[in-house]
């Protein structure tokens, strides 16, 4: 039972081999084996979003996935979006707009926001999209709904939306 299983992943651009108990979650593999502790464990049951990472560009809860399931996948964590010496636009905007207080949910919020902007650009609808066929208009209601998988118990939601909106405006074609 639970004999060692193998998978080769790419994490933040580097090849990484997983070899171990299949019960290892992707989250624990990142934090405990690769020492990438930016990704946080909140509820460990897919309810809070603190563990959000990107898998092949899409956001998922890394707590509800096994490392061994990700053979061949490309994983991006908060460390991959930008190290402290070279923050990405979203990371800088969260700082500028006070998009956090305690900061525990922040890596998940930023990874989630990164993928959310890509989903918007691809025209994906959400539960509050008025016209499913013409695509979303990025209102505050849209942004809140799309970020609803990431809880912030400090209640920094308005500033998180401000930070995301600042990045959207900066990226708008002139």
């Amino acid at each position, binding site marked *: 039972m639970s004999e060692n299983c193998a998978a080769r992943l790419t994490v933040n651009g580097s090849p990484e081999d997983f070899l171990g108990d299949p019960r290892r979650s992707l989250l624990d593999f990142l934090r405990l084996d690769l020492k990438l502790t930016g990704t946080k464990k909140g509820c460990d049951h897919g309810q809070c979003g603190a563990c959000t990472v990107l898998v092949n560009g899409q956001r998922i809860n890394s707590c509800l*996935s096994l490392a061994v399931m990700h053979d061949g996948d490309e994983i991006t964590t908060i460390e991959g979006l930008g190290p402290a010496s070279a923050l990405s636009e979203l990371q800088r905007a969260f700082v500028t707009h006070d998009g956090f207080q305690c900061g525990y949910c922040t890596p998940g919020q930023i990874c989630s926001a990164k993928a959310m902007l890509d*989903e918007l650009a691809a025209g994906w*609808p959400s*539960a509050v999209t008025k016209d499913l066929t013409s695509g979303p208009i990025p209102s505050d209601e849209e942004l809140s*709904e799309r970020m609803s998988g990431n809880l912030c118990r400090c209640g920094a939601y308005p500033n998180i939306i401000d930070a995301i909106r600042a990045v959207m405006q900066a990226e708008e074609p002139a």
Partner: protein
Amino acid sequence: MRAFDYARATEAAEAVGSDARLLAGGTNLLDLMKLEVETPARVLDINRTGLDRIEADGEGLRIGALVSNSACAADARVRADWPLLAQAILAGASPQLRNKATMAGNLCQRTRCQYFMRTDTRCNKREPGSGCDALEGVNRNHAILGASEACIATYPGDMAVALAALDAWVEIDSPSGRRSVALREFHRLPNGIAHRDNVLEPGEIITAITLPAPVRGRQIYRKVRERSSYAFALVSVALVLRMDAGRIAAAQLAFGGLAHKPWTDSRVAEALLGQKPSPALFDKAADLLLSGAQGQGENDFKIPLARRTLAAVLHDATKE
């Protein structure tokens, strides 16, 4: 989490006849395994089996079992011709979960309540014959239709409610060949065997969900819940309705949050057909839907809530 043997399948045929639990997105199964509510000895990862395409099927659509919920809701054909399905998927879970959750996995998510999720309580679904602590316990989210003394949990999904209203079918590969089950018959009620949520047999795998040709008319999925996002339905209504010369010419309905399965009742649509919309007519439809409704105390409010939600959806679907 209990220890298990893990294997990766490269084609769906490996799952047929297998005694392993099939692992797709894992958003429900792995959660339940962490709680040791699910304790499979063998797990077969079917994510690499290629069942992830959406294809035309005559005038209908064949949605592969492993298409993600996000991909289905974003598909241009689904949004244009079966918007009810996109609405229902988007009303459920969170973006992260919808990216991982699959069509077949969503169908197979467990009918459950908080007692099922805790191994220190009595639950006939988790441990057959042990009893049901929800009957005398916290039962605000529980069933008002089709429940039994064995289990009063509700099927928590939204997607399957829309699929029931759209008359979808479930394509299943089994050791004796391929079979198809109407979505409306796929999930089961708890009488007799509370621990079985659906009619899938051991050794079977869902390969696709098929939608018949698009139905003309308005398509509305209305979900009432405790908060505006990322919560299960207290009551939901899925409706496809077409008007003709001021009368209801076609109506297909299904309901979530009310029962152990997506709830359908042909009498409701029959009462609406050929009629001019009116509050009295909507009330009559609700009378039929709720004639056998039974509250458990904390969830008594669902009976008037279902009545009002149905009336609101019918009003919206029939207005000029």
